[in-house]
């Protein structure tokens, strides 16, 4: 029964549970329900990172359980798939994970910056930021180990860049407001992160800063002005060059 349930979608499992309940097969319906709940529990492994208490830990740096789950999932599923399909196909299934996992990590950072998740209950600590950083390293290492056997499908350069971007974004949380302002001033042109992301960071209360939304607006205006001036200068130079010719 369990096997048949596993083959179905969660929706199907629930319908099966209802049909079993209707037939008064209580034990079987309980087992089916529990297995289908397990399926529900397994989905979206990266999302619960934002709920991890490791982000608020003051005593030590701990890796969130969700991250360990993801690592386990990557290695376990890879081996599982390779049993029945070609190495190429299994590697292809995980080929985008190198860019997708950093995106998930950044999404987690955004959740924390907004103040949702575990942050609602306790403030973010430096250990918490460090734990996110280490999570990225752990995931990178595990992913590389899992897909490395088919090196064609694992682009080490692209993956490294993506993880580095995620780590930088995480590091923005531990900066003081001055450091963040300086970083924004220097990196605003690089399109590494969007203005929305920077605004989120300026607004966020971190272990070393208190959120200041106005400073971001000021800086933005300054940068805009500078940009405008530059453009005007350039236009003038162009016009002057055109006049001469």
């Amino acid at each position, binding site marked *: 029964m369990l096997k048949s349930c*596993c*083959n*179905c*979608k*969660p*929706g199907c499992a629930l319908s099966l549970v209802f049909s079993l309940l209707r037939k008064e097969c209580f034990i079987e319906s309980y087992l089916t329900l529990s297995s289908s709940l397990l*399926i529900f529990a*397994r*989905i*979206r*492994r*990266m*999302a619960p*990172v*934002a*709920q991890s208490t490791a982000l608020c830990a003051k005593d030590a740096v701990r890796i969130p359980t969700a991250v360990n789950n*993801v690592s386990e*999932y*990557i290695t376990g*599923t890879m*081996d*599982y*798939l*390779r*049993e*029945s*399909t*070609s*190495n*190429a*196909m*299994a590697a*292809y*299934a*995980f*080929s*985008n*994970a190198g*860019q*997708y*996992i950093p*995106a*998930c990590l950044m*999404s*987690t950072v*955004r*959740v924390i910056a*907004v103040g*949702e*998740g575990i942050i609602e209950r306790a403030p973010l600590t430096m250990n918490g930021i460090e734990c996110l950083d280490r999570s990225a390293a752990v995931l990178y290492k595990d992913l590389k180990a899992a897909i490395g*056997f*088919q090196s*064609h*499908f694992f*682009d080490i*350069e*692209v993956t490294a*860049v*993506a993880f580095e971007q995620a780590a930088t974004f995480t590091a923005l949380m531990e900066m003081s407001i001055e450091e963040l302002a300086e970083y924004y001033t220097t990196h605003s042109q690089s399109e590494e992160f969007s203005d929305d992301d920077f605004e989120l960071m300026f607004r966020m209360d971190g272990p070393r800063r208190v959120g200041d939304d106005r400073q971001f607006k000021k800086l933005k205006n300054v940068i805009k002005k500078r940009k405008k001036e530059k453009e005007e200068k350039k236009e003038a130079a162009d016009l002057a060059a055109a006049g001469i010719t």
Partner: protein
Amino acid sequence: MPKKKKKDKDKQKKKDAKAKAKADKEAAKAEKKKEEKKKDKHDKKKDKHDDKDPKSAEGAAAAAAAAADSATKAKNPIDAKKVRKELQEKQQQYVSPFSDDLDEGQFGFGDDQAADLADLEHMLNVEVDEDFFAEPRYFHTLRRVINVLGIQLNDDAYDDQSGKSLLERNPAYQNLQKQASVVESAIEHMSRVYCNALNRSVIQVGRIAREFDDAIGKVEGLRRQLRVIQETIGARHRAANKEKLDKEGETSGDAPEEGQGDMIVASTPSAHMSLRELWMKKLESEALLSLIAKINIVREAPGRFDNLTAGEHKNCRIGAATLCLTEALNTMFSDDVSQVDALSQILENLMTRKGIAASILWETLEDILYLRTANGSVLDFEVSDTSTQQQLLQDPLKQPIDKKQEKRSSAVESPLVVQKAVHFDGESVAEDQEKVEQEKLPMVARRIYNPFHKNYVLLCVEDTGDRDDLSVDSQASESSDGSNKDELDYQENENDENTRRMKRSLSAESMASDEGGDGDGQGRRERKMMIPMSVVKTEVDLVADEMRCYDFETTQLSKQSVQQRYLPRYTDPVLSLRLVTDCLARIGQLPLAESILLKNVEAEIKSVIQKEQARTFYRLDRRKPSQRMRMRGKAADELKDLRRHFMAILSSFGCIMMRLSHFAELSRTILTTDEELSEHVRYPSNFLRPVLDKAYSCMQSEIKDFLRACLQEHISSAKVAQAATSAEPKQKTKIFSFGVLETDNEEQGKKGESGDSKQDRKHDSKQEGDPEVQKDDDEDLPKENTLARFKEMPVSTFVFSVLFPMTETTPQVQHALVFRRSIDLFTDITKTQQEELAQLTEETSIPALARRRSERHEMAIEFLDKAIEDTVLPKLQTQGVNNTIIMTEMQDAFEPPAEANVYARADKIQPLDVAMVHACEGMLAETEQLFMAIHRLPPGGSMYTQLVQILEFLITTFNSIAQPKVDEICVDTTADELLEGYGDDKGKLSVALGKRDAFKMLLNAYEFDLDLMDDEIGTKVGADANGKDDDNNSPEKGSKPKGDDDLGKNKIERFGATMKQEMELLKEYLDFLPFHQESLDYDLIADYELKQATCLAHSLLKVASIMEGRLKSRAKAARGTTRLLENTKQLHDTIKTLKSMGMKMAKFCHVEVLLQL
């Protein structure tokens, strides 16, 4: 005016100075030249006429002095008349060297003539450009003359008002130039159009030049003789006269003056008389000597003949012997010798030798025609492992060449085959036959195209032993590709590097054959299989050419023939055939060839088959048990031995036909040109046609017998079963367990049980790997009698009781497909060959005969086609459809197969080697034979179309069953919804994933041709979305270079941009805010389903890849271009559907994994 005058004066002065300088120069040149010429002439005269009258010498000296004087005086042109006069005076004293009547003291030329000549010489020296005054052998073309004249004219040329040069205004010069261009164009036209005629003329001119040289030699000889005689006579008479004069002097008291005697001799008429007499005497003596020489030739001929054919050296040089014999016979029947009665005994001896020569020649001819000799020879290398062999095959130029070969293989570029040879050559196979001989590759790798002669498809005398990897099957392709199984494909073999090298390698014979234009490296149809007529018409040097193609390397001599003589062995079939044909023509036996060959052709062809059978048996028998076990495991290799045997037979037949055709060509050419021989033949241009036809029909009937035996399932399976049950299980693996060698078993039975136990022990220890015992066991094999045992065995019996049981296969009607292409090619090539022969020899009988033959006999190819159409195709269709449906309807049809542990496999395992779901495996297996058939049937025929339709139906059926399974996994899942998309996002994610390098790599891993599937990469769904997308979002083409599109220049930027596109579509699912997550409705699949999905994706892609590969033309693929078979577009589209299903499943798995992270 004064200035003008001054200028004119200056000009005149300058002109004079120039003219003077020019005259001086010319005079100096002329002087030099004359001096040299006179010197030469003087030397020559001195050499030639030292012994002549001293007057002539004086005259010559005087003439030389006069010439020198005249040359010095000729410096001044005014003195020319004086010089001429002096010259005339002095030349009166000059005695021409060309004068015949020296004794009479007459001059060679008259006074006037001498004067004219002197004038001419002077004019040539002074007036005419020295460029013309050269040796006559330095021929100057008209163009050269024009140029010289032009230069001369240009010296004085000046531009007038019209601006035209003197040359341009000179009509004579212009006419000359026009004439030159007309002549040149005419010559060019002639050389192009009448190339052959000119070549022929050159040959004729060469012959004439040779004759002229001979004539010159004869004249020189005669003159020398005359001189000697003259000297002798002069000396005698001088002595006689001297004596006479002495006597007279004694009587008169005066001493004779010197030179007086000679004068007397020269002037006495008696000297002439004695000269004539002596001349006659000399002629008589010469005639006598010539007669003695002739008698000597005739007398020595039998001895020389015997020495050449049956000497201690064991080399029967029949060419040289025939030459000697014919010379003797011609001498014998010449007018002068034929009248000598005393030579009757010698004549008898000669006639006996002629009979012997004829017998040797007939046997040799049959040896050549039926492949007992002239097969080249094969190199032997001790190669330890397969990899080395492969390497050697791949790079034959690096192979070691043994010293013996190096000495004589200047014509051979490279050895090509690495193998050991084992002979089954007639009854007298020596005991040490097992010992591998050192032989060489075919020495003459002819440019005369022989499609049957492959470097690894051997003829009749060699065997590859156990080295199957070097056999025709070594080119076997992937086991998964059924269409690639027929390694006997000639066309494929043509592409083989070794074969190409072999064709490139030259010999003297092949060099000659270049004239036929067959070495141009073009397609098979354009290459000539017959010997070019220019080669046929050239003379054969019976002594030298025989030595060129004589096989001195073969230590194992062929059977002893006529009166204990060894038959000659050759390496080159064409040259040896030319030799034998020429010999037969010389002894007048050529017209009998038709009747003699007609008698034996059937028996000989059967004997060829029997030899092949013996060799196949020997090869199979020598195979070790471990090898047999290995072979048993491979389905693809099941028919390998069968095919190999069949290919060997076809190869032998092809070579026989080729040699017979060559012989016919040579014979017809000789018979048409030789009037004496042509009298004995009614139609020389149709000579040997009955032999060719009979041989061909015999071959066809033998091939049919073989095919019948392979295809008859009911009878043969019963016989095979009988053969299998009659023998004990223990004996099945032994060599004499199939009733083939009953006599040997009887003998062994007599020896008693001890012998058996010994054999068993040996067998056991052999299995254990004891090398010594193994060696003994090999030596014990009674190979010398193997051929004898197969002598009376018909083809069908061999197939039933030996071939199938030993290869552990059963006769099946489907085997018809395996043999079809080979037979088709054989028939096609033979037909082309016969047409070529008919064209070359102007044969008239071939169309009528072919018609009659086809009416009377059913060809093997027709028999096979009938079997395929009536039995094979219906059977395959029913079997294929039924089994596919059964396989797809099984409960676990689409379940992932139970595989071994993942760690047991290598990391880099190829996707095409991984197992598929049962339904796909079954479908692939069922369509394998159908795909194989598609390559073997003539494209466009009814059978072909029917077959394509069957396949299309099968694949469509499979698609209709697989589609619901795919839907079952995908439908109602988040991943599928994302891939499909809604509204503006429809199919966008699929397209974005298709752009990923990873996806292209996946398709590459499954060996899809990305160039051919640009539209497919985005899948059908993605393609629909393309129409709606703007230009920036258009899908990247598979073959498009990276960085050219909007996705960025470098790799990271490109990846980032692609990711951005994907993130936009997955944005919803990347928002980890708790309230958002709760609002999302995820429909993800369980792990087991994910496993099923990936397995299905893999299976569908693998099936599609293999089927696409099977649809491609193999010949084209080998040349680097891929092309689908004819009329298979719809079938290809059906396979595309299968492929798109696989790609969709792969993308689905990918998205599903991302969502589960």
